[in-house]
């Protein structure tokens, strides 16, 4: 793959404009992978505060990608009978029941002066975001008077002391994707959209990628051991369509678009929620400085990541490779030196 050769060539030196290739910030993932005509990096912003738990994303994903049904088990984990991402589950909606009020903000905060008819008149008039089939309006292009392209906070009255979190998980399409780095066949590659895709006709089932993923996303099918995961609907992106899950999402909880723009939108949204009193609202995976260099698919959560079954501080498993090689080299050098010394001594 071009990815491998380009990446290996680039690994020898770090170009400050392109960022680090194994960890840390990387503003141009596709470019770093060797694409000279890279498209804007595309990804998902999954806003769990408006997820209604319908699982349409799971079904749309399975339908489009022809993923097999993988077990009829009543788990007892609330309404989550899918359990987690795997070779046969590329979107997974988690359901978390908590004895906890959601935030304590006033319902409908800040809407008193909204002219709903003016807002309704503009419905559907705002242009879609740039990029193939982006689903949500650009920030600033929302109907006059309506909140920033966003849905108001999931607002409790603080009375029932019960909340039900729902969140649609997916492959994170990491800036520094360890699965890709460890793949010996080139089955896993970086696309021109900056996403990470596994090719079923090349994968040899070695399984190196499985422990490499810091999120536990990629997985092998038991039949022939080949690895599978979300492709961010690479086949749809190529023809200007948005991914199946985003298309099916009725509340725009799953938003698809250029990652830069999604990050902006996410920042606005989390600020709004916090201002409305949802102090638990936080972004997960959007930070380019985090352990994987930021995710191409990131989330707005309403609780600690662990609550949703997400690792709190994921680190790309290849981050320490240079250090490991340095240590190994040092060790080899010391061994060699010791050997030399021993010969020198024996000679005496």
């Amino acid at each position: 793959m071009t990815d491998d050769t380009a990446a290996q060539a680039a690994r020898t030196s770090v170009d400050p404009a392109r960022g680090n290739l194994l960890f840390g910030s990387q503003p141009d993932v596709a470019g770093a992978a060797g694409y000279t005509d890279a498209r804007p990096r595309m990804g998902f912003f999954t806003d769990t505060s408006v997820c209604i738990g319908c699982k349409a994303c799971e079904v749309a994903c399975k339908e489009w990608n022809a993923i097999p049904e993988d077990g009829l088990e009543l788990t007892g984990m609330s309404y989550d009978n899918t359990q987690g991402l795997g070779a046969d589950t590329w979107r997974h909606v988690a359901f978390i029941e908590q004895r906890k009020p959601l935030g304590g903000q006033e319902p409908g905060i800040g809407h008193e002066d909204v002219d709903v008819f003016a807002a309704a008149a503009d419905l559907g008039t705002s242009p879609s975001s740039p990029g193939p089939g982006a689903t949500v309006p650009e920030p600033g292009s929302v109907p006059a008077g309506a909140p920033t392209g966003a849905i108001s906070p999931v607002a409790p009255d603080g009375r029932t002391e019960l909340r039900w979190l729902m969140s649609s998980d997916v492959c994170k399409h990491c800036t520094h994707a360890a699965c890709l780095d460890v793949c010996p066949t080139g089955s896993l590659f970086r696309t021109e959209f900056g996403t990470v895709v596994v090719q079923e006709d090349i994968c040899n089932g070695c399984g190196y990628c499985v422990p490499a993923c810091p999120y536990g996303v990629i997985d092998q099918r038991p039949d022939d051991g080949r690895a599978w995961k979300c492709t961010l609907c690479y086949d749809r992106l190529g023809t200007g369509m948005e991914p199946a899950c985003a298309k099916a999402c009725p509340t725009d909880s799953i938003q698809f678009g250029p990652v830069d723009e999604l990050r902006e939108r996410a920042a606005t949204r989390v600020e709004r929620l916090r201002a409305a009193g949802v102090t638990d609202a936080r972004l997960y995976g959007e930070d380019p400085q985090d352990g994987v260099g930021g995710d191409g698919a990131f989330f707005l959560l309403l609780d600690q990541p662990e609550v949703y079954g997400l690792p709190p501080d994921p680190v790309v498993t290849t981050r320490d490779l240079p250090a490991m090689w340095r240590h190994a080299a040092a060790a080899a050098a010391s061994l060699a030196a010791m050997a030399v010394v021993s010969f020198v001594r024996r000679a005496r």
Partner: protein
Amino acid sequence: MEAKARGAKVIHVDPRFTRTSAQADVHVPLRAGSDIAFLGGIINHVLSNDKYFRDYVVAYTNGPVVLREDFRDTEDLDGVFSGLDPDTRTYDNSSWQYAGTEMQAASGQRDQEYDQRPGGGSVSEAARGEAHGAGGADVGEGRPERDETLTHPRCVFQVLKRHYARYTPEMVESVCGVPPDLFRQVCELVTENSGRDRTTAFAYAVGWTQHTVGVQYIRAACVLQLLLGNIGRPGGGILALRGHASIQGSTDISTLFNLLPGYIPMRHAHQEQGLDAFVRDEAAHKGYWGNMRSYLVSLLKAYWGEAATDENDFCFDYLPRLTGSHSTYETVMAQLEGTCKGYFLMGENPAVGSANGKMQRLGMANLDWLVVRDFSLIESATWWKDGPEIETGELRTEDIRTEVFFLPAAAHTEKDGTFTNTQRLLQWHHRAVDPPGEARSDLWFTYHLGRIIRQKLAASTDPMDRPVLDLTWDYPTKGEQAEPDAEAVLAEINGHDAEGDPLASYEQLRGDGSTSCGCWIYCGVYADGVNQAARRKPGGQQNWVANEWGWAWPANRRILYNRASADPDGRPWSERKALVWWDADKGEWTGHDIADFKKDKPPDHRPPEGATGPAALSGTDPFIMQADGKAWLYVPSGLTDGPLPTHYEPQDSPFPNLLHARQRNPVRQLLPPHPANRYQPSGDEAGAEVFPYVATTCRLTEHHTAGGMSRWLPYLAELQPEFFCEVSPELAAERGLRHTGWATIVSARAVIEARVMVTDRVPPLRVHGRVLHQVALPYHWGPNGYSTGDAANELLHLSLDPNSHIQETKAFAVDIRPGRRPRGPAAVELVRAYRARAGVDERTGTEP
């Protein structure tokens, strides 16, 4: 979520904390079956705190109308209205009328004996409660007495005040289990958001309809919405969230036994009526129902074309006639009696989806033939070889003589047609792929069945066959499968004039046979020969009402009765809520929506003395389908069970009725006694403690109704793979139920088993001063398919709403215990033992 984004506050009232509750601003858990007490409490709050929209109530409702002196309310008679005949379980509604009007006695020869046949119900009323659902009930001749100060002690407004005076927050707490402060919060949110500048909408689903007082649940919401001025205005209304795609369409074009297309009532067998007498008796004299003859004659022309002439009453005599109520449950009884010998099930799975599955199967086992058209081999197609009664030994396959035909059906993506949603919006869908194999559309099946029957009868000279032979049955077909052209059907429904040109509005319909129209309310859907339902103009290219997306009946008006969005002088109640208004310069109604009113009738128009039909409506009568042009806080006629909603307990309830001595709806429809359909003792009756928990059936997002469209699909089945019941941790502790273990649930009818889901989402409530646990049962499962389980509806009885004949699946009483249910004959024995312990016999729960 879109409304929330624009500032709407969402209140969710449901016994369970659902995915909807998770997104709502306020969740109000209440006891299933207590909603009239809850809504009545809000009505009382509105009335006693003067929160009602006075100008609206005075101008547009029957609040000022004075009632007759002999009317007695449930408050006067401890739970019944005047006119109850306990023997026939019916009301004579003559005392419910307005003072100053005389109800015209229905003419024609009534078969009184038939009327009083036990179980048959009244012929006249059985079918009319629902037939007049669209507002066709007459209010009689004369000018009703009015008191616009709303102070006359017998005016509707004062009667209403007295009727709901005891529905206090304390009563709501005791009956519904809703704490007073939470209840007050709901009252304040609703009233603060109603008035000139703001409107509140109610959305309900079958949680409101499936009760022995289901129609009165909706009526209670009507009363509240009218008091608050929330009908006919943007952002207001009462929205029925339908359980299936195009349920609205199936009542518009009438799959119901008692209606012809467009809510024209079906005629009765035991009345000798010609066309003229029928129209005289059934049509209201004022309002648009006054034109019923035009609608009916045009329908007859659509049915019988050339054969329908003035001389033969336009073939009025060809119409089938009712001999009483023929709802789905009476049909089951007729199957058991042996009078109903054949049964078509088209996309319906009564062995799972209807109440009391055993009664359904026993009925089907007594048929000569059964035709099932569905996607897969649903339970209603295979009960004869693997149904629950085969397992218990109650039925043996070799004894069943029913001949069962299974015909594969096409899905909506495999055929052209329309969906009509709850807003009366028709949207055309196009065939995306051909149906596989031998699967065919319902249209294909019905058309070719009719074609073949007509072929077989072609040589017949029997007058009985004339209605079939004279039918216009000439739809063009296309393709290899000879699929009839759905647009040709739509064009026939729309109607045409004498020259064959498509009609544009029901105002063009004539009663002289010069027009033809298959459903008067749909007239205009094919205006100019264009399929208006297929319009897809994006929202950005039109105003916010979006009149050019699809087509809404009537006449593409998006908000019904929208004349009420303007004040009596024709000005919007507020600029913020402007929808349609009178433009005095142009002399017409104008606005964002198409006015649901005669375009050039000025607000100050007063009809001349003796005017009838639409001409009798004044410029301030927005409710143009109502016989008096007003919205009804109080219903003088058209309902079988009372003019005002009153709280009654469900048929099977662990609680006594705190409001009245009358436990249950006195005129609820009970079917003739049958050993498989016993009712339970309730409240203080001995044996009620045997079934101490309230159960309610419910749905899951992942499955569709009785499962025929979802349990066979692996991608949906894996999301909710097994039947389960939801119980609180407290109930689990009380009964030793283990999370993900098994529970056995028992009623006087059946025993089923379910996996246990212990969750805080079904909270225990404090009702009548004691803790109540509720059990939620999703009803999607049955023994067939990819994902299987017992059917929740096995537990149900057949006690029906007397207006709509719907079953009470949303509130009943059960016992629950740990472990799996017994198999074979032991299952039958367990239910029998429960019945014996509760002292159940054929009289239990049958008092009026």
